[in-house]
């Protein structure tokens, strides 16, 4: 049994490499997708002379065939060299490193918030199926899952920030930790609403299935306490689809931060992406996409491992599905 597990893990790990390779190719090709070709992308709005163009061609190996260019680029990436920003001339890796903490301090609490409250609300709705609690929960979840982060961000900014003046609406505060988190509170709430609704609906559906199963009725007939049945048995089974979906929640949160950071003027990874898109700063865009994609691949791998830990019935002989 255990060797099967290890074989499965190894298989998943091996599957990761072609995936990362494919993504690096896509990211590398971004430079060539630019209107006017790579030279236009790299020069930006600087004045062009034949000499500067030739220098660029030399520096980025543009005279070589494309696979040689890729080789130079990927060996740079492998050494942590993601190039330099066209506009600020700082190394891309440094830019990303300095922006990452803000994005992490939004996504991490938002992740806990959406999973925690989502599971709680979904379980409550399932237990009180058809009653008022259920209908209100389902209604709110439907509304929230149809409301994209940028819409909620603007509405929250207006209502809670400008009208009621409950929350600060711009930047990261005076530098103290308390003020920092206070400035991030509204962005965290905004970005977690959609994933929260998603997890709520998912938990409700999964719990309803458990509640209607034989073992649940049997446990009830045996006179076990309701709390014990729900939290020890039913929820553990219902967690399986939730763990699988947590990878999606993570991607949703990352995408949400792109919008939320730009609405609330936060200098995170999303804000960096938006500003480098506006300036067509290709190396920065490449760096962000690469790092986010690899991050997502590894978190999906972790999800797979968790899935295995929770559900002993996982069939290791089959592939990913």
């Amino acid at each position, binding site marked *: 049994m255990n060797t099967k597990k290890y074989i499965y893990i190894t298989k998943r790990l091996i599957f990761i490499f072609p*995936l990362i390779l*494919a*993504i690096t190719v*896509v990211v590398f090709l*971004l430079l060539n*997708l*630019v*209107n006017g070709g790579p030279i236009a*992308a790299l020069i930006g709005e600087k004045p062009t002379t034949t000499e500067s163009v030739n220098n660029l061609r030399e520096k980025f190996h543009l005279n070589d065939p494309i696979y040689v260019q890729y080789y130079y680029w990927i060996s740079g990436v492998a050494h942590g060299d993601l190039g330099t920003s066209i506009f600020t001339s700082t190394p891309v890796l440094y830019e990303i490193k300095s922006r990452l903490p803000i994005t992490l301090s939004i996504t991490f609490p938002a992740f806990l918030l959406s999973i925690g409250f989502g599971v709680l609300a979904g379980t409550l709705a399932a237990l009180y199926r058809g009653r008022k609690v259920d209908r209100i929960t389902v209604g709110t979840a*439907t*509304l929230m*899952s*149809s*409301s*994209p982060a*940028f*819409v909620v961000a*603007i*509405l929250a*900014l*207006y209502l809670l920030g*400008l009208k009621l003046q409950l929350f600060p609406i711009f930047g990261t505060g005076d530098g103290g930790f308390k003020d920092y988190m206070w400035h991030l509170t509204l962005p965290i709430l905004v970005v977690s609403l959609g994933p929260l609704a998603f997890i709520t609906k998912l938990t409700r559906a999964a719990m309803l299935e458990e509640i209607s199963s034989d073992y649940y009725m049997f446990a009830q007939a045996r006179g076990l306490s309701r709390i014990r049945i729900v939290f020890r048995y039913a929820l553990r089974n219902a967690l399986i689809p939730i763990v699988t979906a947590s990878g999606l929640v993570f*991607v949703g949160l*990352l*995408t949400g931060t*792109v*919008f939320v950071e*730009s*609405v609330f003027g936060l200098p995170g990874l999303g804000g960096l*992406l*938006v500003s480098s*898109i*506006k300036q*067509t700063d*290709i190396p920065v*865009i490449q760096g962000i*996409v690469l790092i*986010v*994609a690899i991050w*997502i*691949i590894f978190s*999906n791998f972790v999800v797979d491992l968790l899935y295995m830990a929770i559900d002993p019935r996982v069939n290791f002989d089959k592939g*990913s*599905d």
Partner: protein
Amino acid sequence: MITLFWSQIKKLKEIPASVLLASVTILLFCFAAITAKFISPIDPMEQNLFAVSQSSSDIYWLGTDELGRDVFSRLLAGSRGAIIGPFLIALSGLIVSVILGILAGYRGGALDNLVMRGVDFIVALPGLLLAIVVVSVTEGGYWMALLVLSVLNVQGDIRIVRGVTLEQRKLPYIESLRVVGVPRRRIMYKHIVPNISPILIANFATDFAGALVALSGLAFLGLGSQPGTPDWGRMLADGQASLFTNYWAAVSPAIAIVLLAVSVNLIGDWVYDFYTKKSLQR
């Protein structure tokens, strides 16, 4: 099954009020999209620099934006793009998933493997993020946005359609058809398609709502639709500047996006429930 579905629709009383309300909302938006040119009180492109960021008045029902354009007329004009784009994306998802999803689910084997590995690859990509990047880098505009979002959207549909096809395959009616000697293509498209049609409709609705949100999101970042075109996402982003003076410039497109997305999702959810209930009874 499809006849059952339509007979259900005919019994209007059994349709929940929320779904009826959602249908009316969608019809209203469609009406606005078709007749916007004729019913909008003011030309949505007309700039009145003497009436910039005004709050709502008798002339400008929802006030004006930061260039003095009528928000209400722009909202009406924007409904066209908000319906056509998502419709095309959902339609491409429907067509591709019916062809590839049923084929992969029904025939299995190497083809199934190939399709599912392709699906796995797209799933691993950071969807909307990649769309944002590709559309911005290529400066491809609206059609590029539709293309990229269609490609990213289709994997979910293929996965679901393949799943329900696998379910249908095991049912006695398919076996009977095979015994009688009905050709494979006919089984797939004449018999399986009608039986999974509620799932196809539900998928279409989910795709539509998702595409509306994604397209508006791109427009919000200034990607996809051309600058100046009345687009809800763009209006939302531009309206942010007039929040102090005319909050309707930002709030009204926000409400429009959510209202249309919620309505479509409500109908999709209802059709999906209908499918699962019926298949449970079997």
